[in-house]
């Protein structure tokens, strides 16, 4: 039965989850927008970030909230390395460039998963206690879990920061310019490889932030990225490939649609709503809601 309380609760939960989905997806959108490469290892980046947060908690006794900037920094370095070590060569392919890029990042995903299984075993882990874990804020019968609440705040802050970086800094202008025409920027003295490496680093750092927050309330195991990566792809496609603001809006839409569907249909079918909206967007606006391509 639908009471006002359950509807408000569903929408609130959906909004919080949606902001987190957006934060997970934005790195994917950024990288795609920058150089037209879909990172199929995006879910594994998330997994690595969650293990990094777990490591900080277990070995350094750092709360995931404190560790979040460290995890983001580590992922920044990792993302940049992935570009310099793998993707840089993959995009140089003369024939079948699209396939080579897909296989390069897909292969990376499999390697990362295998490594995680080998190093950390397939056991399920979680961070037993943290400042925000296991706490809930209750407002007039509406329960808002603190980890998701903090996640939503971090997501909004990250998007605001990203907006400023892209619009107000030289790096952001270089990013935009490289995106517009990667060949022409070389003529004005912008090192394309450097911009791409920073772009990959930034994308990875954002998913690192999401991973550190998620580690406070989600279980951690080598395949954890898979289900979130799927949602991230839908989010990006929905919001518009390459659009950072689109990923933000897409995440919120996915979260709200998921919550609304679960109110009407049996919960096992809650993804149906997301894919139905996605299908509608593909039919009527193939470039995505805010896509500019």
């Amino acid at each position, binding site marked *: 039965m639908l009471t006002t309380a*359950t509807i408000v609760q*569903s929408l609130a939960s959906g909004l919080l989850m949606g902001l987190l989905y957006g934060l997970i997806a934005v790195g994917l959108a950024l990288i795609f927008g920058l150089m037209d490469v879909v990172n199929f290892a995006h879910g594994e980046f998330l997994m690595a970030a969650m293990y990094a947060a777990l490591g900080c908690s277990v070995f350094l006794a750092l709360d995931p909230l404190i560790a979040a900037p460290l995890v983001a920094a580590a992922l920044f370095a990792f993302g940049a390395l992935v570009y310099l070590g793998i993707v840089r060569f993959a995009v140089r392919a003369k024939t079948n460039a699209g396939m080579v890029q897909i296989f390069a990042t897909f292969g990376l995903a499999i390697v990362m998963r295998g490594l995680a299984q080998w190093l950390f075993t397939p*056991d399920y882990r979680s961070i037993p206690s943290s400042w925000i874990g*296991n706490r*809930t804020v209750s407002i007039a019968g509406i*329960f808002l879990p603190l980890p998701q609440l903090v996640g939503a705040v971090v997501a909004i802050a990250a998007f605001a920061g990203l907006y400023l970086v892209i619009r107000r800094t030289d790096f952001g202008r270089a990013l935009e310019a490289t995106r517009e025409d990667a060949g022409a920027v070389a003529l004005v003295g912008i090192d394309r490889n450097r911009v791409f490496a920073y772009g990959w680093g930034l994308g990875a750092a954002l998913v690192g932030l999401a991973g550190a927050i998620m580690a406070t309330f989600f279980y951690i195991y080598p395949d954890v990225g898979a289900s979130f990566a799927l949602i991230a792809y839908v989010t990006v496609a929905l919001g518009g490939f390459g659009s950072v603001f689109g990923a933000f809006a897409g995440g919120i839409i996915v979260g709200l649609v998921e919550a609304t569907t679960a109110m009407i249909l*049996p*919960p096992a079918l*809650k993804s149906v709503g997301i894919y139905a909206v996605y299908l509608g967007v593909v039919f009527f606006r193939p470039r995505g809601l805010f896509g500019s391509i």
Partner: protein
Amino acid sequence: MRVSRRTVLIGSTASLVATTLRAQQASEVVIGVIYPLSGASAQIGVDAQHAFNTAADIINTVHDLDLPLAKSAGLPGLGGAKVRLIFADHQADPQKGRAEAERLITQEKVAAIVGTYQSAVAVTVSETCERYEIPYLSADNSSPSLNRRGLKFYFRAAAHDEMFSAAMFDFFDALKKKGQKIETLALFHEDTIFGTDSSNAQLKLAGDRGYKVVANIKYRANSPSLTAEVQQLKAADADVLMPSSYTTDGILLVKTMGELGYLPKAMVAQDAGFAEKALYDAVGDKITGVISRGSFSLDLAAKRPSVGKVNDLYKARSGKDLNDYSSRQFMALIVLADAIDRAKSAEGEKIRASLVATDLPGERTIMPWKRVKFDETGQNNDADPVLLQWTGGKFVTIYPAQAAIAEAIWPMNKT
């Protein structure tokens, strides 16, 4: 009658041959053991080898245990013959299982076969055994359909999945008699074969026994979020929440319940995730008093002293405690050897007749069972599962009466 030297010679030779034949027959009985020894479930097979070797050791040498064949060396019914095990690897593949069973029977001349962990492999192995009229003892296959195929040589001493669910409802009935209010149930199950089969069995049992299912929630396994599902559970607020979930979803369920401020009156889980250490490491403190089903529990040692001693012997080999699987594997070989001993023969048909006549009291097993007695389909219907309650950081057996060492804490949030 004149007895010639030749007659005497022939006679004595004949009797000598007969004695040697009997001696050869008596020296050992070969039993085939088919398990996954390589591949993804290899660990199960390796643990099983230790369990079977422990059982063979107890049968073949003298032990002071209240188990069949423990106090004698070898099988007295066959002149002290020793049990020899031959292990075969089916790699979790039904076709490899069929081929290995065939090889064990025709080349290694095994008297019987035990196996196999995976129910799908048990299907082909037991069909092969049926064709050669060799008994197959299912140690740890839990699919309910296995004994319903009309096979004459199929036997299972342990419980199948439907009996596990039935035990939960027996437990509810018993609690109701004591004056507890249990009227409504909420089923929460994942969408693969384990969860759907489990919820179907529970739905049917609830209908038969007059419990009202107020929520039957199927969810997608490994969902990123279970918020909507938990909201519905909370709204239904049933007397008992019955999850059938693997570890990941189990952890997320408990965490989400905590976040949405929902603590059920009681939780009775279908094994799987709720028998996993990882789940209790992550969220055990939030669900003190949760009940899960199992085939075995170590605290049975308080009621059945041989459990502790067998566990020590097993641990010396494997470095692990007996669990749901190794306990059933151990017991299967004892039951089989006991039947061969009473048959006084290693012939398939005679062992079968002896298995049919088996009536072993539960006290002489290491299991929580009432007894071992096979029905016409080869199923032991007295193989009671146990219900275990998570209190004080460990599991305590609370049901059935013959195995319980503590009263159930009900409802769970009384703790």
